[in-house]
Structure formats: structure tokens, C-alpha cells
């Protein structure tokens, strides 16, 4: 074990996979000598060369398209899109090409690509560097969306994604990049499609992902002092998400709060809430609460940003309301 930041844990995953499998290569903007905008690929260009750590121009459609085409001939590309907001410029390649290929060609082709991208608010990035984009992609059959909460999961999930045969959108929250934890130096897997119980509890289930899981854990810690026992379910894979673990938890607690940084309308929290209502209504002792971003773009000014992005206090209020 070694203390690593999320950035270092991700770097370790890429390093191990590139060392093990010559089909694995990286492409993206400024990922080479510079090591990426957030340093995730640092050192890999020197170690593996410019062929396998491939700097591109600002051509997101070509980055993802090239990843898909090369995956069709047996490569294992890991593409980096600098900010999740920029996924709008390669949407077609993810949605219409990678995600549908296996289905529409009757299983003849697969597109085992990983598209890593930095998501989320919290640092004054403004409207085009702060969005949470999972909602854009929730409605895309065939796509896998993975979202780690901590350094350990980040490494194990990224390794699982590179090994998986499905196209993966891998969301890395900017506010979690510097988070530190004990992480094994060797290779290990964290399973896809499997949520984790980030904190066990009895009275209420909080379902969350990414930075909102960290906020939920902080809220749960403080609520424990009020005698409220909160179970935090960290989804880890957002699509297809682990209904079983969520419903089991709700069956136990009878109350559900669903947290998502993105706006409420049409988002992850809506699908999770609707599924709990549809399949777990009998377990519920009261209405499901949703804690989401406001239905606005993300403003630049940090005090304004704090108004539209949910946090620990909003989660605490929702939990109190759920058990009231």
C-alpha cells in the first residue's frame, strides 16, 4: 500500500495496463510530455513513447472516432477529453458509433474504448468547465458510465474498464483529484456495475456518486451525532447502475435520498428515484427526496456556484426531511 492521490492512482492504473498489454494506448490533448491538464498521464510519455501516448490537436470527434476505429481492429485505446463539457463535440462518436455498434451489427463488432474526462464543479471553472454530464449520456443503451469516488476505486475501476469489452465513459471529478488514500501499488480490479456501501446505516439510504458521495459521507458523519444512522450507497457505475444494491438498502432503511450534482430534470437522480418508486414502493415509509443541482448553468463566481451546486448541508436537510 502507498498513499496516493486520485491522480496518482489513475496514473498507476494506466501505467500497469500499458506495461501489461501492448494494445493499450492513450490519445488526447496535451497528454504527452506535459502529462495531461490534471497530470493523470504524467511520466507515461517518457516511459512508453509518443506512439502510445499520443498528443492530438483539439479534435475531440477525431480523438474518440480514432479510438473507436482502432478498437474495431483490436486496440485498447484510452482517450482523454480534457473537460467533460467538451464531450458535446464528440457526442456522435460516443452515442451513435461506439455505443450502438455491437447491437446494430448483430454482435460482429465491439468498441472497447475508455473515454476519460474531468467532470464537475467546485473550483470556479464557469459554465464550460464545470458541468456534470452523466445526464447527457444516461439515455444511451450500450454505453457504460463509470464514476469513482476515491483513489482506491479510481484505480481498480479504470483497470476494469480497460479490460472490459464495452465502451466506457469514465468520469473523474476535478474536486476529487487531490483526495488521498491508501492504494495498492499492484494491479487489482474493482467490479463494474456494482455499487458499494460507502457507509453502513439503518435509518435512511443516501444514493450518490462522485463528489456527492464525499458530501454524503460528511453529512452522514454529522447526522450520526444527532442519532440519525445514514447508509451511503456509492453507485460507482452510473449506467447500467446497480438496482439490486440500492433496492436492498432501501428495503432495509425504508427511506431514500438521491443525490446528484447535475440538474434534477432528466438526470441520474430522476432515474434512480423512479426505479426505487417503481420497484421498491412497498419498502418506503415516506417520499423519496432528491438533492440535485439547480436547473441552471454553472455560474463562474464561486459564491454563485455554491448556490447552484448541492452540498453537505442540503443533504443533511433532505435526510432530516426523509425521516420526519
Amino acid at each position, binding site marked *: 500500500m502507498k498513499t496516493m492521490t486520485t491522480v496518482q492512482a489513475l496514473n498507476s492504473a494506466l501505467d500497469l495496463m500499458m506495461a501489461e498489454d501492448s494494445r493499450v*494506448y492513450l490519445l488526447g490533448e496535451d497528454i504527452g510530455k506535459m502529462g495531461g491538464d490534471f497530470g493523470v498521464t504524467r511520466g507515461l510519455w517518457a516511459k512508453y513513447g509518443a*506512439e502510445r501516448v499520443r498528443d*492530438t*490537436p483539439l*479534435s475531440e*470527434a*477525431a480523438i*474518440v*472516432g*480514432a*479510438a*473507436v*476505429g*482502432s*478498437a*474495431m*481492429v*483490436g*486496440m485498447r*485505446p484510452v482517450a482523454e477529453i480534457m473537460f467533460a463539457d467538451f464531450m458535446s*463535440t464528440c457526442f*456522435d*462518436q460516443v452515442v*451513435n*458509433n461506439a455505443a450502438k*455498434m*455491437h*447491437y*446494430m*451489427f*448483430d*454482435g*460482429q*463488432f*465491439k468498441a*472497447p474504448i475508455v473515454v476519460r474526462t474531468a467532470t464537475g464543479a467546485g473550483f470556479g471553472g464557469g459554465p464550460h468547465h464545470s458541468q456534470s454530464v452523466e445526464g447527457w449520456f444516461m439515455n444511451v*443503451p*450500450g454505453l*457504460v458510465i463509470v464514476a469513482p469516488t476515491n483513489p482506491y476505486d479510481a484505480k481498480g475501476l479504470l483497470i476494469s474498464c480497460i479490460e*472490459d*469489452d*464495452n465502451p466506457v465513459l469514465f468520469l473523474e471529478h476535478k474536486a476529487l483529484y487531490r483526495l488521498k488514500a491508501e492504494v495498492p501499488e499492484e494491479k487489482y480490479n474493482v467490479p463494474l*456495475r456494482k455499487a458499494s456501501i460507502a457507509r453502513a446505516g439503518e435509518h435512511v439510504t443516501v444514493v450518490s456518486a462522485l463528489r456527492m458521495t464525499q458530501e454524503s459521507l460528511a453529512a452522514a458523519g454529522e447526522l450520526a451525532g444527532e442519532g440519525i444512522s445514514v447508509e451511503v450507497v456509492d453507485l460507482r457505475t452510473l449506467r*447500467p447502475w446497480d*438496482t439490486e444494491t440500492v433496492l436492498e438498502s432501501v428495503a432495509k432503511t425504508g427511506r431514500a435520498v438521491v443525490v446528484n450534482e447535475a440538474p434534477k430534470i432528466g438526470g441520474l437522480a430522476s432515474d434512480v428515484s423512479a*426505479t426505487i418508486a417503481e420497484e421498491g414502493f412497498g419498502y418506503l415509509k415516506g417520499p423519496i427526496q432528491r438533492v440535485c443541482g439547480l436547473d441552471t448553468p454553472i455560474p463562474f463566481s464561486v459564491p454563485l456556484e455554491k448556490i447552484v451546486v448541492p452540498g453537505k448541508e442540503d443533504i443533511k436537510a433532505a435526510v432530516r426531511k426523509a425521516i420526519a
Partner: protein
Amino acid sequence: MVSDPKLLLRLYRDMCLVRAFELGLEREFKRGNVPGMLHTGLGQEATQAAIAANLKPTDCFFPDHRCHGLLILAGTPGERIMAELFGKATGICSGKGGSLHSADASVGNFGNNAVEGSMMVSALGAALGWKMQGTDRIAAVIVGDGTSGRGEWHESLNLASTWKVPVLYCCVNNGYAISTPVAFSHATGDLCEFARAYRIPTTQVDGNDVSAAFEATQAAVQHIRAGNGPYFLEYKTWRWQGLFSGEFRPPEEVRYYREEHDPIAMARRQILDQAAATEAELAGLERDVDAQIAGWIDFAMGSPAPDPAKAIADVYVGWEVTPR
């Protein structure tokens, strides 16, 4: 000019097969037997024969929406392409792809992304993968003039040139998007200019002259196969099919292409001029082709609808995820 009589006859037969396929398909479409939309390659048979004759089964190609001909010439049993277009169980994609998405991995047909022009970046990726694997394989992409305004075009041309990867760009310029003439909507009517701007060698050829189209394609393939990077071919051609609402092009243009510059009539004249075959031999060949197509249509008409289980199969690779 192709002087080898055997090759010339092969190209002629291929073109006749494509025309008979498309005419038969169009007839069945009008009778209501073919679902969806229909875009035929009528009038563009020479380009498809020229491309097919120059690719190896180990190469790949990304066809466009008027490429039924190329799909059958690549070696897929024709009745399975026909059945796919009819949406039947015996189709090459079990009826899940249809006219716009008929892929066959076994012959290097990597399928169409019907967001036309998007395959420009897929081909870039396939070529990159093969180059990284040290093969001499080629990735061909067939695109129309109508998509040359898409960003994917320019992202692909720029990176293929920068990376020197083996892409054969086959631009089938039939003069119009759906109704908009190229010169009306583009800064240039000479699409080779786009490729030259990215320092890719180009050839513009009469796409209705199968001899010229074959030789231009052959030279381009040799250039790429020798490791020189991408090549851009512009085949000037014309499609028979007008708009759904009827013919919109100038009457003189229609008359010229249908009566004086029809690729099949032109090839037929060349064969007779060169005495590569007799009139009677050609008539026999044409009858054989018609009979073959009639058999494929019978096969498609007589095939069952896909197994209902196919509707939910192959959304993910290797995962038993029941769609909710």
C-alpha cells in the same frame, strides 16, 4: 485505360450486378416490401466496382449510405445483404442494421455510421490501429460530397496526414447533398482542395469511367500500401435517384448522365470496341446477373422475420443485462 479483357469483364459484371441489385430493390421498395428509407447507388456503379476490385479481404472499408453495391462486391453472399435490407432473420446483421448499417466483419465491411461523414474519423482510427500493429492493411472510407462540410472530415484529413496512416479516402462526388449543389454550399466545388490543404495527395477522376476509376484507385492503393500515408480520391459521378418528391436537377444534366454518360453503357462500349467480348456474350452475362438478383429477392422475401429475442440481444458485450 484497362486493357486486360478479363479484368474489364469482371468490372462490367460487377457493375451490372450492382445495377440489377438496386433496380430490383427499388422495385420492391415501391411495392412496400422494403422497410425504412432507400438510397440507391444507381448511376454510381463504376466507383463501387473500382473500389471493390482494389481492396483485399484483409483491408477494411467504411461504406456510405449508397454502397449496397460495394457490400455485395466485397464478398458477402448477396442474398444475405438483400435479406438485411428487407429486415429479415437471414440478413447479415439479422435485420438489425438494414440498408444503412449492413456490416460484415468477415470481409472487412466495417459498417456505416448513418450520421454520414462520421466514418471519416472511424477510418482514421482503424488505419492508426493497423499501422501500430505493423500491418500493411488499408482502411478505406467512402463518403459523399454532401458530408464534406462536417468537422469530422477536416479532423480526419488533418490527423491522417500528420500521423501518415493508411487511409484511402474515396469521395464519391455526385454533385449534390440531398438537393443542395456542392458549389452552392462550399467555398470550393473541387473537394480535392480540402485534402491538398492537409498535404494529402489527390486524384480527381471521372467516376463513371470504370477503367479510369479502377486505375486511379489502384495507384492510390499502391501509394498507401507502400507506407506513404493517406490518399484522397474524388470520383466525379451522378446519381439516378432524385428527391422523394421528384427530379430537381436541370433536364439537360439528367439527359446527359442517363443517356450519354452512363457508366454501364460506357463500359459496354469499351468492351465491344476492344473486342473483349461479343454482344451475345454480354447479353448472356446480363441475363445471368438478372437471374441471380431475382434469386436473392426470392430468398429475402421468403425469409422469416428476426427472432424477437434479437430485439434485446447484444446491447452490451458479454453482459446479460435485461433492458428495463
